[in-house]
């Protein structure tokens, strides 16, 4: 069973550095909801507006003298992100910034990265063995050079001599 995911380290929330006196109402947008409730207060509540209601909303905004919608016809999530970023300077890539289990700042970040990469290596295809990814290759067969003693005889027969018989190699 793979280890639990280790979230990425993130920078401090921008609203943590907010100056005193700024609005403290909790933000209910997608990004701020994922953060602790005591730090996310950008003051903007994005809502989804049905396209059929857009003419009425725009007419009301014109009547009240307010600026029109920034992205009335676009994607809901995109409009939410843009509006949110304009007001509280949240990062645009929430999937790499959100953390459900913040780590202490004094711990070594290298350990987090190692854990994350080890998780990545086992989460994809745990049943596939490394030898399946990299087929086994036999080392090239290197034929040894012919020995200079290959043509030499190992056994010698002395027929006429001080000793006769079959001798081999060295004596």
């Amino acid at each position, binding site marked *: 069973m793979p280890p639990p995911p280790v979230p990425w380290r993130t920078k401090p929330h921008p609203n943590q550095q907010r100056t005193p006196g700024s609005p403290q109402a909790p933000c209910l947008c997608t990004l701020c909801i994922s953060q602790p409730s005591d730090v996310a207060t950008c003051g903007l509540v994005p809502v989804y507006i049905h396209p059929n209601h857009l003419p009425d909303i725009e007419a009301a905004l014109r009547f009240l003298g307010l600026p029109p919608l920034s992205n009335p016809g676009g994607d809901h999530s995109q409009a939410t992100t843009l509006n949110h970023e304009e007001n509280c300077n949240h990062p645009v890539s929430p999937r790499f910034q959100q953390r459900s289990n913040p780590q202490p700042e004094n711990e070594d970040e290298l350990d987090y990265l190692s854990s994350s990469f080890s998780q990545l290596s086992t989460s994809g295809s745990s049943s596939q063995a490394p030898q399946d990814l990299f087929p086994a290759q036999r080392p090239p067969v290197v034929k040894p050079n012919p020995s*200079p003693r290959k043509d*030499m*005889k*190992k*056994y*010698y*027969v*002395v*027929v*006429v*001599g*001080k*000793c*006769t*018989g*079959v*001798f*081999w*190699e*060295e*004596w």
Partner: protein
Amino acid sequence: MSSHRDNVLPFISGVPGARFKGFSTHEKAAAFYSDAKDNRLVKVIRNPGDEEFFGPLHVAMQ
């Protein structure tokens, strides 16, 4: 690099008409020596003092 003659030199040095031959396998060498022995071609020739170095004459022939 030593030659066949160098390998058998102690047995043929100072022996007139010495004969020797090399083989790649022991079987071939043994067969050749057996044929030579059957044909009475095997001869042990000693010089004075060789017994001290090569041993007694009766064990000089395999």
